[in-house]
């Protein structure tokens, strides 16, 4: 019964989304406020309906209702509760439902959030967001129904792919989807601006918070996915330049560019057409990611053709929104009044370079991801484009970008002073060079590229710190004054400085992996193996039965100079429901570094093990987390909240909003 309610709610959500699309759009054309007013109600209603559907499917999973095919294929009654719930989005149908839930969530948020966007723009944006819901709901209901029942239900489910039975599945997809889909709202605003034929700083201010939310979640989602792959796959790698990873990285790159170009638009009323293009591009790349992952085209170019129902449907959605977006752009963009040009040496000039480099870097990832597919489709030749390709193309562009971050930060808006910026950065350069040389000296050298990378990371990090210091510290000022000044800086200034410092930390962690050490060996009890500064010795091995799998555990001691400092368990798990085994790496954190123990096969020479010492590896993800915190700080900036009371005039929020609207009306 509950399952049928879920299915029914999904159909109802489709109807409401159609209303959300048609009525506000019509109302905006007819300048009819009551028609436009239906949009938000429909959006909230659609969200509630999708949430009910999602809840119903969750219920089916929690209670192990094996009359539902989706549950049979992906669940097992012995599975722990958490993995029964997360198993919902560990498969095609469920993850599409999660996707639609997030689309509807953003529609509802736009409907209820106080926004500084003028009424018509908001109505149009809501209509476009509704259209996206309509497309994906139609897809789910017609070819990807998660509520399909089985006529002859089995007694037990087929269990979830063991590799997905991990806390990572609980966190990674929701974060990633909020990021991906968050850009749909930015796309909706861009389309609305094109339909309305007007775009200005108000638009930029209305869109930036949404863009920030999407960016923060996408950053966290990618970082989480990378850490998950690192500890679960047992290869000690954290980024494989695999098409699925690239699918999430491309929207991140173009979304980062968008975040910066919106800033130029907000402050200087320039780069308008480019910003709109980026907004369309970012969501297009999100859709492309969904297509690549969900259509099966990656598993086989030919498998795609054998399952036309789903693959072609997603391709149609992709073509409709990307094609529609660009067609609208080609048709309406010439109508937009372009903003002024500006001096090359200025903050906005630096942001243009930032955009240029990010967009180009994104293009190289795009080529590396799609070229093999295109080549195989055209000639049948099979190639793999791996890390060496990206090392030769993406990495140099990223390095140029990193080098420029502190300079861009140090330049003023409108007319920057390059000599002044350089002289202000001398301190930063000095500190970073000294720190880098000290590290290299302690490590007794290292690869040149890694040393450069390390320096760049430190340079960007110190540059971020300096951004706050230089604006709050004055010679001879007491500490309390400095702190007060630092606290008084706008949140967006803090946000930018923290985010850039986070990027620096992440790059330091990436560069430090050049010093990681790998040892292969056979472990026998009592015979230590050396990995970097540590010795690892097998002390114990035993088996145990846990929930839905059996586990063979090998226990190791990590020794430093003969003293035991850590105990770490590595294991092999066997899942009878799928007749599959997985390897769980043993990871022991020492400072920011980790000792990583992966098990191989037991042979006559002992238990095969692969050991890694990965110095500072945690900085990669800590850096991403810091960057995301920077984004969140920027989001909390009071200037982004319309009608938010300014300091000292707390009593008149309504007045300011009225002024803002009057300004828009007057234009």
């Amino acid at each position, binding site marked *: 019964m509950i399952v049928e309610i879920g299915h029914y709610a999904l159909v109802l959500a489709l109807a409401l989304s159609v209303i959300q699309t048609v009525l506000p759009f019509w109302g905006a054309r007819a300048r009819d406020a009551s028609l436009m007013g239906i949009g938000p109600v429909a959006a909230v209603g659609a969200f509630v309906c999708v949430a009910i559907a999602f809840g119903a499917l969750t219920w089916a999973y929690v209670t192990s209702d094996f009359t539902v095919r989706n549950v049979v294929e992906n669940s097992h009654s012995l599975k722990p509760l958490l993995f029964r719930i997360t198993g919902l989005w560990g498969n095609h149908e469920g993850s599409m439902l999660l996707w639609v839930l997030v689309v509807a969530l953003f529609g509802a948020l736009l409907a209820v959030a106080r926004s500084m966007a003028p009424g018509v723009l908001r109505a149009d944006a809501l209509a476009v967001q509704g259209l996206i819901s309509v497309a994906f709901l139609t897809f789910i209901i017609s070819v990807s129904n998660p509520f399909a029942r089985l006529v002859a239900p089995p007694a037990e489910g087929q269990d979830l792919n063991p*590799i997905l039975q991990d806390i990572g599945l609980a966190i990674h997809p929701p974060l990633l989807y909020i990021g991906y889909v968050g850009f749909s709202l930015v796309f909706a605003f861009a389309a609305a601006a094109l339909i309305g034929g007007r775009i200005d700083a108000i638009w930029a201010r209305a869109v930036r918070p949404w863009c920030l939310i999407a960016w923060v979640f996408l950053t966290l989602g990618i970082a989480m996915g990378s850490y998950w792959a690192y500890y679960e796959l047992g290869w000690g790698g954290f980024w494989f330049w695999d098409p699925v990873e690239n699918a999430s990285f491309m929207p991140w790159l173009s979304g980062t560019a968008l975040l910066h170009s919106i800033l130029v638009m907000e402050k200087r009323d320039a780069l308008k057409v480019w910003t709109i293009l980026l907004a369309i591009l970012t969501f297009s790349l999100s859709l492309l990611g969904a297509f690549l992952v969900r259509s099966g085209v990656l598993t086989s170019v030919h498998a795609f053709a054998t399952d036309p129902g789903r693959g072609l449907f997603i391709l149609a959605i992709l073509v409709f929104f990307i094609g529609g977006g660009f067609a609208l752009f080609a048709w309406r963009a010439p109508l937009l009044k372009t903003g002024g040009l500006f001096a090359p040496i200025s903050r906005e000039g630096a942001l243009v370079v930032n955009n240029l480099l990010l967009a180009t870097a994104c293009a190289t990832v795009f080529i590396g991801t799609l070229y093999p597919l295109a080549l195989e489709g055209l000639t049948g030749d099979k190639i793999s484009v791996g890390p060496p390709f990206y090392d030769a193309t993406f990495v140099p562009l990223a390095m140029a970008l990193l080098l420029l971050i502190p300079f861009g930060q140090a330049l003023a808006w409108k007319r920057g002073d390059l000599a002044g910026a350089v002289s202000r950065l001398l301190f930063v350069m000095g500190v970073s060079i000294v720190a880098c040389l000290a590290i290299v000296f302690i490590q007794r050298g290292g690869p040149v590229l890694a040393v450069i990378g390390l320096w760049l990371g430190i340079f960007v990090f110190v540059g971020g710190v300096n951004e706050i210091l230089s604006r709050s510290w004055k010679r001879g000022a007491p500490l309390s004054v400095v702190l007060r000044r630092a606290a008084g800086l706008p949140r967006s200034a803090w946000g930018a400085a923290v985010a850039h410092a986070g990027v620096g930390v992440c790059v330091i962690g990436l560069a430090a992996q050049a010093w990681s050490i790998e040892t292969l060996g056979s472990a026998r009890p009592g015979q230590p193996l050396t990995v970097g500064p540590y010795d690892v010795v097998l002390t114990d091995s035993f088996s145990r039965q846990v929930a839905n799998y059996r586990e063979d555990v090998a226990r190791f001691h990590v020794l430093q100079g003969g003293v035991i400092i850590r105990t770490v368990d590595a294991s092999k798990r066997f899942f009878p429901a799928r007749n599959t085994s997985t390897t769980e790496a043993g990871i022991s954190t020492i400072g920011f570094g980790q000792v990583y123990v992966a098990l191989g*096969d037991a042979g006559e020479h002992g238990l095969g093990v692969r050991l890694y010492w990965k110095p500072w590896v945690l900085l990669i993800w800590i850096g991403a987390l810091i960057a995301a915190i920077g984004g969140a700080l920027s989001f909390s900036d009071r200037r982004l909240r319309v009608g938010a009371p300014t300091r000292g005039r707390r009593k008149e929020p309504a007045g300011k909003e009225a002024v803002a609207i009057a300004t828009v009306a007057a234009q």
Partner: protein
Amino acid sequence: MTRKKRRLLLIGSAVAVLGVALGLVLFAMRDTIVFFYGPTELAQKNIQPGARLRIGGLVKEGSVERLASQQVRFAITDSTSDVRVSYAGLLPDLFREGQGVVAEGVLQPDHTFVADKVLAKHDERYMPREVADALKKQGVWQGEEKAGAARP
């Protein structure tokens, strides 16, 4: 600086960055791309030793030899031709005789293959795509197997 000059500067720098990127991509395409062959294709195409390749097929029954210090030797077959492979390191969980694998490495002058990477996915139903295609070519493919769930 005049408007025209500024615009020129902007377009010029965009062209310069794109040009550099294009150069990098073309350069990388020549050197870093790895072709995939099945054992039969490898025998037919007369590939120069020293080239970096991926080869895929099934691990031949009874061919796996485990030597000391994690050295492994095995043969990859498509039931028409075999390639001898040697590899040092841990094999993936689902490396078994009769299972599909992809090995990446360098072809030696004596037509053996020294792999530095061996891939077999974690799901027993999963067959690496290239392997499935190579086997289909040789007519030894047995049924359409469903690919395992990828990471979402």
